[in-house]
């Protein structure tokens, strides 16, 4: 097992290397002028494209550009983000807590809702409840994240005035900036508690509800579908029939026997689910004015900020590769029959 983990861990740098080659290579498909134009914020600056091209070596070939970037990365310098106007590492340090806060607040509900609804649908197979849940799952799975997000902003926040957008109310952001508030973790819910500021905790929590709900609706639909079919598979197996024949209660059959085995495909789905969640976070942060890494990356993609995109893709690559490794380890915990050589 340990050997397997080491081998898999050694693959991660290779994945990151290939990802970086792809991003730099894709950028080369655009002309230096097109890439230089992405640096420009006002029409007048476009008059100085030639100077921008020279300054940022945009007219150099693929290898030179890659070498320039890689050399700095090896020195621990991920570059300067044109989007956030500060070093990439500073931005990651500032924004990662916001994305983590959102991801963590959505993750548990996503799993719980998906598994719970999947179980209910399976145990009410072909009944009205099952049919209804299947329709809901299809809608949730096929609904673009931005549609759900805009609907929540316009109707729940704009129309009903519930919850809120942004990480905190603007007036509170000003107060925190001008007063004494220590940012221990960068997550306002936790920092609110650690500073003894219940008002900050509540406001931060309140503003997590809508973006987290959007994520839960979109991502948990997939889990529900997998959980349903996996549960149905398990319920049809001999050991379940045996358990029933023994006279066990339906609840015990489902939750003590079938449930645990049905969870294995759900764990397999954790990798793709994480991918969908990250994709969702990018859009959701943009729409809910939630300044995390997703919002930063979305803007970088729109403005062809290669340094920022590279850093973001590297980070996501690292997270995804690590998550897949964790999934493999989790298999062993859930199903002791699985062994890695």
């Amino acid at each position, binding site marked *: 097992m340990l050997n397997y983990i080491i081998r898999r861990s050694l693959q991660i740098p290779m994945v990151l290397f290939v990802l970086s080659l792809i991003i730099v290579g894709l950028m080369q498909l655009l002309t230096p002028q097109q890439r230089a134009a992405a640096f420009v914020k*006002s029409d007048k*600056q476009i008059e100085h*494209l030639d100077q921008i091209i020279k300054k940022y070596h945009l007219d150099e070939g693929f290898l030179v550009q890659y070498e320039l970037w890689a050399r700095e990365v090896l020195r621990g310098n991920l570059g300067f983000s044109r989007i956030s106007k500060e070093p990439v590492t500073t931005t990651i340090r500032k924004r990662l807590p916001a994305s983590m806060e959102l991801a963590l607040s959505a993750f548990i509900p996503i799993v719980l809702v998906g598994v719970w609804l999947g179980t209910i649908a399976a145990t009410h197979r072909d009944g009205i409840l099952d049919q209804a849940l299947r329709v809901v799952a299809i809608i949730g799975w096929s609904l673009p994240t931005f549609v759900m997000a805009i609907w929540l902003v*316009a109707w729940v926040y704009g129309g009903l005035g519930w919850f809120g957008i942004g990480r905190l109310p603007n*007036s509170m952001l000003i107060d925190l900036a001008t007063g004494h508030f220590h940012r221990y973790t960068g997550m306002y819910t936790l920092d609110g508690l650690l500073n003894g500021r219940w008002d900050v905790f509540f406001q931060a929590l309140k503003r997590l509800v809508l973006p987290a709900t959007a994520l839960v609706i979109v991502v948990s639909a997939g889990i529900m579908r997998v959980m349903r079919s996996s549960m149905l598979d398990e319920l049809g197996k001999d050991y379940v029939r045996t358990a029933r024949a023994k006279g066990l209660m339906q609840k015990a059959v489902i939750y003590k026997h079938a449930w645990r085995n049905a969870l294995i495909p759900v764990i397999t789905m954790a990798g793709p689910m994480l991918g969908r969640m990250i994709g969702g976070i990018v859009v959701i942060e943009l729409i809910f004015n939630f300044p995390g890494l997703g919002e930063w990356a979305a803007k970088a993609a729109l403005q062809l900020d290669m340094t920022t995109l590279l850093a973001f893709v590297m980070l996501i690559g690292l997270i995804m590769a690590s998550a897949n490794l964790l999934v493999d380890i989790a298999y062993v915990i859930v199903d002791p029959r699985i062994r890695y050589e």
Partner: protein
Amino acid sequence: MKRLIVLAFALALIGAALATPKDTYVFLQNSTFDSLDPVQAYDGASIGVVENVYETLYTFKKGTPGEYTPTLATSYEVTNNGLSYVYHLRKGVKFHSGNPMTCKDVKYSVQRNLVTMPGDSGAWIFGVLTGYGNDAMTEAKKALGDNASQADIDKFLDAYWKKIEDAVVCDDMYTVRFNLSHPDVAFFAKMLFTGAAVVDSKWAIAHGAWSGTEKDWKDWIGVDLRTGYLHNHASGTGPYKLVKWDGNTVIAEAFDGYWGGEPAIKKVLVQGVEEEATRLEALRRGDADRVDVSNWATINAKVKQMSGVKVWSDSSWSPASAHVVFFNFDVQGENNPYTGSGKLDGNGIPHDFFTDINVRKAFAYCIDQDAIFNDLFEGHGAWYTMALPTTWPGYDPTIPIRKLDLDKAEEYFKKAWGGKVWDKGFKLTITYNAGNTERQTVAEMIKANVESLNPKFKIDVVPLQWSDYLKAARAKSLPIWPLGWGADYADPDNFIHPFYHSEGSLAKRQSFKNPEFDKMIEYARTLVKPEQQQERYDIYKKIGRMAYDILPNVPYPLQAPFIVTRDNLKGVYYNSMISGDFYWKDISK
């Protein structure tokens, strides 16, 4: 009991949105900030902050871009036949750091532009002080070539530094003298640009900025100031001091040592929120006092239905820009893809197609100005009779506007090129920068109207990337194209010269030359004294009237400006030369 706690918790979470307090101004805008360093800031969002944190020697009067009021100076005079501008500085002004403002700071601030001259900044505006519009190394390469010896480069740089040193001189602690390389009628207006905002030199040097001396000036030539301390820190003399710039949010608070008295709004938050729906809902809920809205269609469809929201607009408001359709008098380029066969044979146009005034007039009568005004801008547009902002001195509103008239267009096409245009037809391409709906509409409108006159007239409309569009325009390869120009500084010369002088940056791209225009514009540039300004403005009006007949370009309407706020915001006004439309210190609730 447990249920009650859960219910209370849920209600607290749902809760109503918090309206911004009475002393707080929250503005959600559609873009983020590039840099808060006054020299580097060259985009509207950044300047919108810089202009409230720093101050220039003079500033704009509320609502009137052509009138000024003294701020860090108390008076000024023009001497030495327009080659020197002497400003007398206000005494007792303090920076946010507590340091006193003196001539040394003014000198440092302006010379910092001349030393660094970042290519993508507005520092070139002050090039008249040295006679150079680029940074010293670029100028050295231009003058000496790429293979110059280090000794020659050093000699050039020494001479360049000498010019910087002589350009700004402190006559005494509160008198600063600017020595120009040549008379510049717009110099006073240029000094209102935030690039000339006065920086706390002692504070800046202490934080690693240029030392203000020859010792390290070469290290700062052409440097990208976004990596410097002043990029996200500030010590100005303005009514607001910067508290924090956190990515896309700027937080500022009133400066209690401000020489002009403390403003009513004590705290300000400006945030870049790209999603319009999010901005609008924040405004509706009172989470924002002001938001950027893209156009009048959105205002009519969404904003006007919101309660507690006010749309500020006035028929006298006009943006500090002008948009026109350019005609190229000498299209360049072998196998030019935009001119078809390159001959007047029904499949292209010759390089000098637009030198015939009949062609230009025919095209002008095919532009449906009323449709642009009424359909594109939903009746909220600003008419343009010439390529100059309508509220600026020198603008003549009495000049007629050519509106859609297909009979006249046909008449002129029949006369053009001795009737050959009508008989043989032509084919050309109109381009616009991709994503610009306004220019796309204008281009498609011309195509539809021109093609409706004669089946032998063929026009393609092609979008180009911004960079490719400007590159093609600069290469003089576009036969006809719509483009706009925004003001760098509040002087009509900033429009008249680029649009109408043969050496103007825009007129050059269309190979437009009119010796009479050149003579008048050059003469106007010599009228530097305050008492000569009316004469100068009359010359510009005359140029506008002549341009109606000569028709080097066709100005068309622009969207009328508007400001969207909560209805409790007072003191709002619009000045096209203020990036945030008004100064924060002038508003209250």
